[in-house]
């Protein structure tokens, strides 16, 4: 999906293609533009081409076709060490034979910076990631989270304007990961750097990014801010991939502006918002978020269609209740309800009726 509406382009992928074996394309016609200071996440399942894109930008892979531009200059033929792009690797790649300070000093040394200036910058970078006291340690003496901070500091110490991160939090435990997400985001905002972040963790993508590019099959499926991505998926892959999602299959009966009626395969009729269906008779897959499903009749909008449902399972998850229903032949239909004082706990075997606002239900490609 082309994205040509951004002014002040800093990083540009222009019709970039990549093939390793000359037979299949790993990246198919990639067009992407980043303004200065943006935090962009490339999200997708493994093998979707997101890491290849990052490696092409870093210079470790060459584009088979197309142009990659940095600040308006094509960097296709510039070797990686002259691109001035900071990078944080999946396993941190801290040099094990150097101390933390030496690791940080390395990019400054190869830039022939003076000793006092080097020390000053190393100190500032370490303070920035709150690791000022660890300069003399070896990477092996640090915990995973500390190594992560050092890797970040090293990518930032030579004041790169563009920093690439390749699944940098993959090896951390959940709590630390969440903490580091905010930390990275804060530092990136403070310094005003441009970040291209690769992950397969959608929570990470949603919490950190200005925009997320969802990759699948070598293409960007959708490029949008997190809220738009979640609430208005443009196709069924994005709907499936981002967050939890209920799908029901059927045929479009009628389209009327931003309202469509869909007849499900079991014969029931529901209301939906047409996203990428264009005419009646088309097969469609409707998608609805579990938390937007309503079973309390009082709260349902008048006149919308409702469906009969049977409660199969009730799971208590602390902050929310997760209830599995059988709806229109689909027994994997999930609804999520907040654990509020007045919330009803649905018992398995109960017959209920569910419904939703038509604009929360998206009729997507089949």
């Amino acid at each position, binding site marked *: 999906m082309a994205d040509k509406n951004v002014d002040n382009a800093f990083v540009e992928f222009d019709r970039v293609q990549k093939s390793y074996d000359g037979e299949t394309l790993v990246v198919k016609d990639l067009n992407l533009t980043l303004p200065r200071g943006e935090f962009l996440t490339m999200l997708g399942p493994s093998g979707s081409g997101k890491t290849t894109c990052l490696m092409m930008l870093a*210079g470790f892979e060459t584009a088979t076709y197309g142009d990659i531009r940095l600040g308006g200059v094509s960097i296709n033929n510039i070797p*990686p*060490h002259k691109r*001035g792009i900071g*990078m944080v*690797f999946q396993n941190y790649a801290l*040099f094990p*034979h150097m101390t933390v300070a030496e690791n940080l000093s*390395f*990019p400054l040394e190869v830039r022939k910076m003076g000793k006092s200036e080097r020390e000053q910058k190393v100190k500032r970078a370490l303070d920035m990631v709150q690791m000022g006291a660890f300069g003399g340690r070896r990477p092996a003496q640090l915990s995973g989270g500390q190594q992560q901070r050092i890797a970040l500091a090293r990518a930032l110490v030579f004041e790169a304007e563009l920093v690439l991160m390749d699944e940098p939090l993959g090896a951390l435990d959940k709590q630390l990961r969440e903490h580091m997400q905010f930390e990275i985001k804060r530092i990136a905002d403070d310094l005003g750097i441009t970040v291209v972040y690769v992950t397969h963790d959608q929570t990470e993508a949603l919490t950190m990014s200005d925009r997320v590019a969802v990759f699948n099959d070598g293409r960007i499926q959708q490029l949008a801010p997190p809220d738009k991505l979640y609430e208005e998926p443009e196709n069924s892959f994005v709907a499936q991939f981002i967050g939890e999602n209920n799908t029901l299959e059927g045929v479009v009966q009628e389209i009327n502006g931003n309202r469509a009626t869909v007849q499900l395969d079991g014969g029931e009729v529901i209301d939906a918002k047409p996203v990428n269906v264009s005419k009646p008779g088309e097969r469609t897959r409707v998608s609805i978020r579990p938390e937007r499903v309503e079973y309390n009749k009082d709260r349902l909008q008048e006149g919308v269609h409702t469906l009969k449902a049977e409660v199969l399972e009730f799971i208590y998850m602390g902050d929310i209740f997760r209830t599995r229903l059988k709806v229109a032949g689909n027994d994997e239909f999930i609804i999520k309800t907040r654990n509020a004082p007045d919330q009803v706990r649905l018992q398995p075997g109960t017959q209920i009726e569910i419904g939703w606002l038509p604009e929360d239900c998206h009729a997507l490609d089949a």
Partner: protein
Amino acid sequence: MTDATQEQTGPMVAADGTPLKKSLARSLRNQKMRALALIAPLLIFVLLTFLAPIFDMLFRSVENQMVSDTLPETVAALDSWDASGTEEPGEDVFRALYFDLFLAAEAKEHTKLGTRLNYEQVGISSLFRTSGRSLDDVGEVWQDWLEDDVDEIWGEGSFWYDMMSGEPADEAVLDDARDRMATLTGDSMRGDIGFAPGEAISALLPRTAREYAAFAVFTAIEDEDVVAEEDPWEAVYAAFAYDLSQPGTADAIGSYTGTGADQLQAVVAQLDTMPPVDFKAAFAAIDQDWMSVENWAAIKVYSSRYTSGYFLNAVDMQLGPDGPEARPENQQIYMMLFRRTLVMSLVITFSCIALGYPVAWLLANLPARRANLLMILVLLPFWTSLLVRTSAWKVMLQQQGVINDVLVWLGIVADDARLVMINNQFGTIVAMTHILLPFMILPLYSVMQTIPPSYLRAAKSLGANNWTAFWRVYFPQSVPGIGAGSILVFILAIGYYITPELVGGTTGTFISNRIAYHISSSLNWGLAAALGTILLLVVLLLYWVYDRIVGIDNVKLGG
């Protein structure tokens, strides 16, 4: 139920009340014994067939019992002689030498001693050999006098036997003789010999009794003859003459009543016609070299049971009368050989690093299929005999060989100026570098395999060019592999034998070739053992230095 606080007061105890440590040791003992039993066959095998022979061999580098075993009396007599003076030893030393050497010559041990002393003093070997043959002539002077001038009966073995036998027997003299001959020949000298020296005659003629006992033991056990039927050795006549020349013997014979008393008195009656007893003159007549102070100094210096002589020899020194001193310039060879061995081994090690590093890098970084093919090529030499590989280098490098032919054909080298590339140091270095290369490549490869490619990428992304990224980031992490490979190659090279022997000529041989020469050709095992011990110590020393500098923990052979 035991209260937990009560348990804390004494040492920790197990549930049955025994101390916990003891209980633990008992429970682990069975496991340990079982583990030990499993490795026992190998342990015993290694101890018996490998370690024990090595230590026995190394012990030979200080062992020096031959001089004192062969010439015990001479060594004792030399004690009071000043080796640093200019005066040759006195009569007592020469007398002791005569009887020692006579026994040694009978046991055919004197030439071995000559060979041994020849390591230290050139020429002693022939001195001992020629003297051994002439010892009979010395004793015959008195034998002839007794038989011709006194009484023919002195030439009869049975008369001597009767005279020397007697009751009560002097077992001490016989045991001495047995021990003496046992040390000399290495055989057990126990068993009935049909002779026992009489106490009376032994007291009258002590020297004669000793020599006759030795003669009797040797004749009965080594030659398996009957003592009474054999004519005594010339040494017995010499001993008899010596006993007669002692003051007081003549008077004692006067009062002697045993067998042969009459004949003895007849001898005493003609004592003034007896040829003079002067062993020193006798040896001077045999060979003037016996008057050389240097020869005697060598015998004295090497008469101790343990010697540092082999080790001094191995570092181009020798034991002089005043302690260790440098050997003459033209006899110095071993330090030069040690130096050459070390330097060439270092050159070979560095060549292996230079050639092996890129190959190991390729092995670690190529795709698996091609890396496997390359690995087979690296291992291929292991499937070929060492001799074949070395011989192949002979074919390649000789003056009429492949490389010279190609160079001549290309016109780079003139036909009459073909390069000499074999039978010198160059040949040895080339062939050994090739042969030892896999030992460098394999440890390097296993270390390089563990270095993730992301380090190089990280370095480049941080702004380092290819060379800086390699030198500052990749190379330091591959150093443990270089260390492991270098230790392997260097230690293998320093003791290498076959290849330098085949392609080394005279300038490209190692110390190991010299050791082999002393083991199999010159038979100077003591020196070979000393050279081997020094080589072993040098390796251990280098290993220790390496451990201090690099740290043996940093050496990785894999993983």
